[in-house]
């Protein structure tokens, strides 16, 4: 209890850091493990924020997937970055699209340049928020090679790693696990599997970069809540790594059931109105409404009357003025009955919208 209540090391409660290092080695076998460090953060988003603040100057280029998690955009927007947005499809970030987005630069010309060129690539490779899809192994290797060519740091934001559907051994390899050059900063989170409120995540990456993040933590939050860290550490102590992984399987099962119910409701009510890819993990369904060029108005002004709320796709665009036909529905905490009702209302909303457009 004393450990819970007292100041602790900035990098994290040592017994927890030890356990997380062991887990990371087991799951990812990072090729440069000896030059890699791991620290605990107050949620993975804080780690991501500190990493971006460490590397971005106002007006810098940032390579990111599009659609992109709104939290990341919130972190970046105050820097007024120039987004190099890479379109994603039903298999996530497309390496061809990445190469094309970077084509305005010749790799050999920018590799060693310090400013005014892209240096960072942000990617949310598993059960991406908001698209719900994952990037396959082949694409990952291609993306890593392109990052290597252009000398980019890859920010691997992976909060849904443990809620991918399927067997752990079939998960595509993480960017960390293929990082032979020391260019990957990986962000893990316990928010989806153990607790979101405890505010606990961790960053793994090259020592010089992780060290900078530690310095920033020292002058801001100091460290993640000691009590939160002790609790998770004790849980690992009790369950062991195998017990923890077994627990994550139970979590996956739950979200899988929710996904099935959601897809059922979608097929019943939204066929012909929407298109979607099957989520490979996580908690989001990314719906396209081909007949509606911009879902923002429809949702913010008219959805309320139909008692349903989703997130309009424009919120996930790097350029907030870009019209977007998509919307994001979450299936994490809604019961199957509510999903059924919600999507029925949504189908009414869309039909009315299409009518409205004709008028």
């Amino acid at each position: 209890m004393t450990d819970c209540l007292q100041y602790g090391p900035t990098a994290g409660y040592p017994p927890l850091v030890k356990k997380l290092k062991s887990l990371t080695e087991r799951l990812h076998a990072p090729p440069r493990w000896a030059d890699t460090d791991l620290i605990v953060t107050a949620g993975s988003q804080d780690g991501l924020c500190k990493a971006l603040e460490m590397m971005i100057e106002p007006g810098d280029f940032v390579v990111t997937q599009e659609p992109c998690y709104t939290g990341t955009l919130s972190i970046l927007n105050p820097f007024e970055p120039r987004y190099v947005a890479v379109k994603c499809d039903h298999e996530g970030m497309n390496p061809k699209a990445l190469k094309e987005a970077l084509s305005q630069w010749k790799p050999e010309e920018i590799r060693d340049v310090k400013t005014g060129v892209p240096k960072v690539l942000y990617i949310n490779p598993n059960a991406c928020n908001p698209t719900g899809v994952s990037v396959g192994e082949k694409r990952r290797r291609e993306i890593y090679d392109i990052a290597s060519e252009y000398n980019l740091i890859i920010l691997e934001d992976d909060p849904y790693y443990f809620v991918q559907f399927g067997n752990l051994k079939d998960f595509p390899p993480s960017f960390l696990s293929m990082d032979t050059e020391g260019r990957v900063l990986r962000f893990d989170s316990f928010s989806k599997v153990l607790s979101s409120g405890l505010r606990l995540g961790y960053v793994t990456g090259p020592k010089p970069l992780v060290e900078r993040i530690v310095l920033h933590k020292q002058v801001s939050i100091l460290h993640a809540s000691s009590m939160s860290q002790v609790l998770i550490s004790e849980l690992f102590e009790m369950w062991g790594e195998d017990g923890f992984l077994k627990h994550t399987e139970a979590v996956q099962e739950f979200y899988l059931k929710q996904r099935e119910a959601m897809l059922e409701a979608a097929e019943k009510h939204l066929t012909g109105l929407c298109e979607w890819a099957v989520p490979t993990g996580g908690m989001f369904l990314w719906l396209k409404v081909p007949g509606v060029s911009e879902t923002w108005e429809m949702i913010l002004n008219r959805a309320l009357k139909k008692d349903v709320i989703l997130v309009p796709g424009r919120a996930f665009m790097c350029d907030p003025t870009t019209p977007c036909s998509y919307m994001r529905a979450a299936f994490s905490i809604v019961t199957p009955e509510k999903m059924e009702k919600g999507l029925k209302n949504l189908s009414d909303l869309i039909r009315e919208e299409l009518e409205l457009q004709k008028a």
Partner: protein
Amino acid sequence: MVLGVENKIKLDVNDTALSLPRIRLVSAPLLRGRMDYSRFLSTNAKTRKPSWITQLRSYLANPSSDILWLAGGHPDASLFPFKETTITLKNGQEIHLNQDLMATSLQYGPIEGHTPLLKYLADLTQKLHSPPRWSETRQLVTVGGQDGMAKAFVMLTDPGDYVVVPEPCYAGIFSELTSLNPHYLPVEEDEEGMRSDLLRSALARWKSEIGETHSEKRLKFMYTNPSGSNPSGTNMSEKRRREIYALACEYDFLILEDDAYYFLQFQDDFPPSFLSLDTEGRVLRFDSFSKTVSAGLRVGYVTGPEFLVEKISQHIMATVMGGSSLSQVLVTELFHMWGLEGFLRHVKEVRDMYRRRRDAALSAAEKHLTGLCEWRKPGGGMFLWLKVPKVKDTQAMLLERGTKKSILLVPGNGFTTRPELPCQYMRASYSTVLPEEMDKAFQILAEVIRDEIQLNNEVK
């Protein structure tokens, strides 16, 4: 502005009184008009926008109970493995987190903080400070007081901006603030705290040299740690606080009041906080539970003008997304159990303990360091700020030679705006050291200092 401090309220608690000044507001019309806060914002803050979910929420002013919320990305809490817990307090009482409370503790909470906790903080703040502009004041829970300050620094500071800091100053703020590239205006203090005459002349000089001609180089804020300050242990007198507040109004800058040691002031009559004097809405106040309840739980709070606190909240949304819910629930349950009165009783005990430790440190200093060091009696906090007149720079003495004798104090140069310059000061902490250990420590310190003087003489 006319504020009368009269009829101090005595809170009789266990025979010894904790006095709180009652601020009498003369009349509302004397409060000045609205501040233009946008002038103080950094480019970073100006470009920061509220998140989409805030916009979404604004459309839901009156949601029907039937609304089907498919928007939020909250994970399902039924899968979180922790069920319930009972925490035993040192006085034997028990706090029980049942399943509902535990579920709340494990889930994302409101960005601004756990609602019941904010209510207690509002009551406590009103009781202790009666902020003059309370209806335009807002509070947020932060991950420790320091994260609130870090966010305020980013919100307010553009490269080249001018910032007033005390000399010496808490080293922790330099680490964040210096990376934002401000110009520092350090102002020395005496036993009453920051010298208002020196502050006035520094401001006048700034104005004539910079302010008049370079309007883009803004004088943004003053950082102050007015109670039991780190490192000097000084309590700023009421007189100085009023003089300094008046200067803030005259020269139009904000005041960042870092009051982590507020409850550790050793006198019974607390001077009014800057927040309690804030008729114009210039004060951002940072409170902390780290010294009184727990440092590790990381719970602090910021109080200030709605406009500025909202900006900080936007930054929090993009970063830590709120403090640990469990930590906040624990502190709330403590307030439930103890009430504000019980909490104030507890902090009194904490204060008394630190005062005893201070007294032991002073005894040991008088015994061993007389003739070698100079110091002022700390009015609060946990530090003794020692000057070594016969030693030019304490760094090497402490870090190389002191450590060999198993003693470590903090060299003073880290507490100045020019850490590269030699510094004759050092900071001793008496927070965790027992009286016997303090005695031994200063005995060894005296040896280290004598050796150092000897060494300097030999080199000459």
